[in-house]
């Protein structure tokens, strides 16, 4: 009996080593462990073995059965493994350098720049307001302290409309409405499209974007303005920028300033952006003129504030190194689609 067990074992080992498929493994299992297999037969017939050897034979037969089970299991795993190897070898070698479908469009550089600025401003507690594009003469001029016959009206080449309204020449045209809407204290920015009646060239457009801001509260000082503009512009240019003020004249502020920043692209060493001038004239600003506050329904004896303008079109051009302002309104998708969406 013991010999038979040994023989069986050898036989199985031999067959197992020749097997190539899962089906054959299963067949082998049925042959040696199935109901009619020799191993099961041996176990069934243990009662016929003489008693002294019964235990030993039983143990050996059982251990053979376990060994076969183990072998089958291992063989199955081994074959599975081979299958994966074969599948991997047969799978396509993907050329990742192939292009994907171009499915993402683009936002306008002004939109992207505007959104970035708005995020900075809202994080500093400013509301964002929309202005009109067609404005009354009053809002565009009178309400920002540019009375009739003021030379500033000539300086800005205005598009006049047949009903006496104008295409707004400056975002300041929204100042009055915003002051009347919110009163003081007030922190608001108002980006928008502006228009000047002039011929087009690389640096002149009749349609362009500005962003203007106002901050009105008790005891707002020139020192506050400088602090605020420095903080803001450092955020815009993602570095600590140096600012300076020079006297400037804008009818709606007094005093008025031209704010320059030390060129953030070359740290003032001289480059194309600052035209080797170290400083870039960036932002007209000033303390809001008492007349403007009054017309906006705010008492200039109680409140003061500052206002500032940012050339959105100009900032967008700086951001993307666009040299020709005409790109902005060109509608040329070949140019604009480079902008991505953020």
């Amino acid at each position: 009996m013991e010999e038979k067990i040994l023989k069986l074992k050898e036989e199985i080992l031999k067959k197992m080593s020749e097997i190539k498929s899962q089906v054959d493994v299963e067949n082998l299992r049925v042959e040696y462990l199935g109901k009619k297999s020799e191993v099961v037969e041996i176990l069934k017939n243990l009662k016929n073995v003489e008693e002294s050897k019964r235990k030993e034979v039983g143990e050996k037969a059982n251990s053979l059965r376990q060994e076969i089970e183990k072998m089958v299991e291992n063989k199955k795993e081994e074959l599975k493994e081979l299958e994966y190897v074969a599948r991997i070898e047969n799978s396509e070698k993907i050329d990742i350098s192939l292009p994907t479908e171009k499915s993402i469009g683009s936002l306008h550089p002004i939109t992207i720049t505007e959104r970035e600025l708005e995020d900075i401003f809202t994080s500093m507690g400013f509301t964002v307001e929309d202005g009109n594009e067609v404005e009354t003469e009053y809002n565009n001029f009178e309400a920002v302290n540019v009375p009739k016959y003021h030379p500033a009206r000539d300086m800005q080449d205005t598009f006049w409309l047949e009903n006496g309204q104008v295409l707004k020449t400056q975002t300041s045209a929204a100042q009055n409405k915003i002051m009347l809407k919110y009163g003081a204290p007030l922190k608001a920015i108002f980006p928008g499209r502006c228009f000047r009646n002039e011929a087009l060239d690389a640096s002149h457009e009749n349609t362009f974007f500005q962003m203007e801001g106002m901050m009105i509260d008790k005891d707002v000082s020139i020192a506050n303005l400088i602090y605020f503009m420095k903080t803001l512009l450092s955020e815009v240019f993602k570095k600590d920028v140096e600012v300076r003020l020079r006297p400037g004249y804008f009818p709606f502020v007094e005093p008025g300033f031209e704010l320059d920043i030390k060129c953030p692209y070359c740290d003032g060493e001289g480059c194309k952006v600052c035209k080797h001038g170290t400083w870039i004239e960036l932002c007209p600003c000033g303390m809001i003129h008492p007349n403007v506050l009054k017309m906006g329904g705010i008492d200039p004896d109680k409140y003061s504030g500052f206002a500032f303008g940012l050339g959105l079109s100009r900032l967008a051009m700086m951001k993307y190194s666009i040299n020709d302002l005409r790109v902005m309104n060109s509608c040329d998708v070949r140019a604009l689609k480079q902008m991505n969406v953020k």
Partner: protein
Amino acid sequence: MIIAGLLIFGDEAALGEDVKNIIPIDDVIYEVDNKSLTNRPDLWGHYGIAREIAAITGRKLKPLYVENIEKYNDLETLNLSVEAEDENPLCLRYSAIRIENVTKKMASWKMKVRLYYCGMRSINLLADMTNYIMMELGQPMHAFDANKVHSINVRTLREETDFVTLDEEKRTLDKGVLMIANENEPVAIAGVMGGLNTEIEDETTSVFLESANFDATNIRKTASKYNLRTDAAAHYEKTLDPELTKTSIERFITVLKEEDPDIKVTSAFSDIYLKRYPHIVITIDKDYIDRSIGKELSMEEITTTLTNLEYGLKVDGKVITIDVPSFRATKDVSQKADIIEEIARIHGYDNIEPKTNLWKVAPIEKDPVRELEYSIKELLAVKYGMSEIHSYVWYSFELNKKLGIKVEDNLKITNGIVKEDNTLRRDMAPTMLYAVYKNIKYMPEVKVFEVGRTFDYNFDLKNAIEHKVLGAAIASNNKEEKELVFEAKKMAQDILKINKNISARFINRENIDKSWMHPFNTFDILIDEKYVGYISLVHPKISDNINAKTSIAILELDVDKIGSLAKNNIKFKEVSKFQTVTFDLSLIASSDVKYDKIENIIKSSNMKYLQEYSLIDIYEDSKKLFGKKTYTIRFTIYANDKTLTKEEIDSDREEVLNSFKQNGIYINE
């Protein structure tokens, strides 16, 4: 004397002498960067700039040497008259004096060189003198030949008049232009340019010297109307101090005597002073100054600054009472804010340390229309691969013509450079079509959009009504028209679903009122039966003009209207734990039955457990199904509290089939 390009000196120069001893050409240039110059009439002369530099540097301003002309008071007074219609005369002050025996013809080297450095050409002594004083003090002056001018009246033209100015051009001047006249014969356009008829000539030895002050706005209008932007006009436009007319005559005589000691003043200082600017006094206290600047300055610094700028001061404790000098009082300085500027700028803006304030913090309200606008832009760019463009808010006459786009009349620009491009847009579509036209030659598919403004105007309205509108165009040389229309529909649905959780109804537009709209493939978009936009296949006439191979769909949505809608709350529905049943029905209907009819039947049927339905397939085959088509609809039914029995399922199925039957739609067996 200059002969053949050689400068010949007379006895004044010894051989070998440094030319600089004779011609004072040494020059020092200070660059003064001041953008507010146009608003500072007092800085339009060197003396004003000197005053400013003295204040900035803390040095003493040299006095202006002038001859006292009181001593001529006993001489003949010149005959002057100035017309004034009201309390705002066009000529505020007219001063004059007569000088005779001017025998020298050429100005000194010193004067010539100085004028040259100021960008002026030397003409003759008297003309150079007027320019020199203008450069020095900012007051334009005019020298008439006294043999030709005896009395002056300043008046506006009663009728259109021809006049030859010093530049030898004959101009026809309109009625109402302010003129200087000699015995009613015009001799100069006031404050702008003299006439050729009274020009100083070589033989002129006596001069009738004008030093006047004119209304700035009127000068500016006249100068720009006749395109005579002279130096004199440029100065007058700044609103000069009328006090300056007398000082300038005094200074003129002083300097002229240095040039030509033999001159004789032969009239009294003659003067008509119609309008004086009010004397301005500003009271300000030191705390206010400190608060406004955001830095505490010493009282001494404040008073020194203001004194150096020639303000009159009275200090009482912390309160300063300030007398504004006349040369700052014409428009520039009138209130406290102006004084803050004086103190702060002389202190130096760079010397003010940045400081924060204790601002109140409050949550920010976001404008729903702006939020919607950004959301639309991002969606269209990210999901639909569209490019945002910026177009102009007026129509292009040329492109409308070329593409065959006809537009309705609207508010017009009256003074644009391109005169024909004057009509503001009522719709976004035309400017989107321009963009398609510009791009389609470079790419087989153009997908562009803009959230821009459109304007509605008619003559009953005072002001135009402005709308924020999305305009989008999808143009393709490969895709089918239907595909483009459905892409536009999906955009509109996505925009509404994402931002407002609402769905719209799309119906055939009845009124095809725009030239680019397809006669029947144009669809209005309705929310709660209110119009919010449209989708249109572009009329083949126009798309053909753009490109014969191109199909174009247009989408316009009123962003203002949609932005103002309330967002539909999302009501969460528990997912059923019980079995879901789906079944498909293939329905045969007359081919004019639209899908929305099918939907309406389903919605109005009495199905008890209907949760969802969707269109699986449409089949149309004119041969097999003449005049008919089939819709295959998948129904999903379940209950939240039980598993449906076969009877319940069948009953729901029967319900919807009955509803279809009543509408002449049958199951396709």
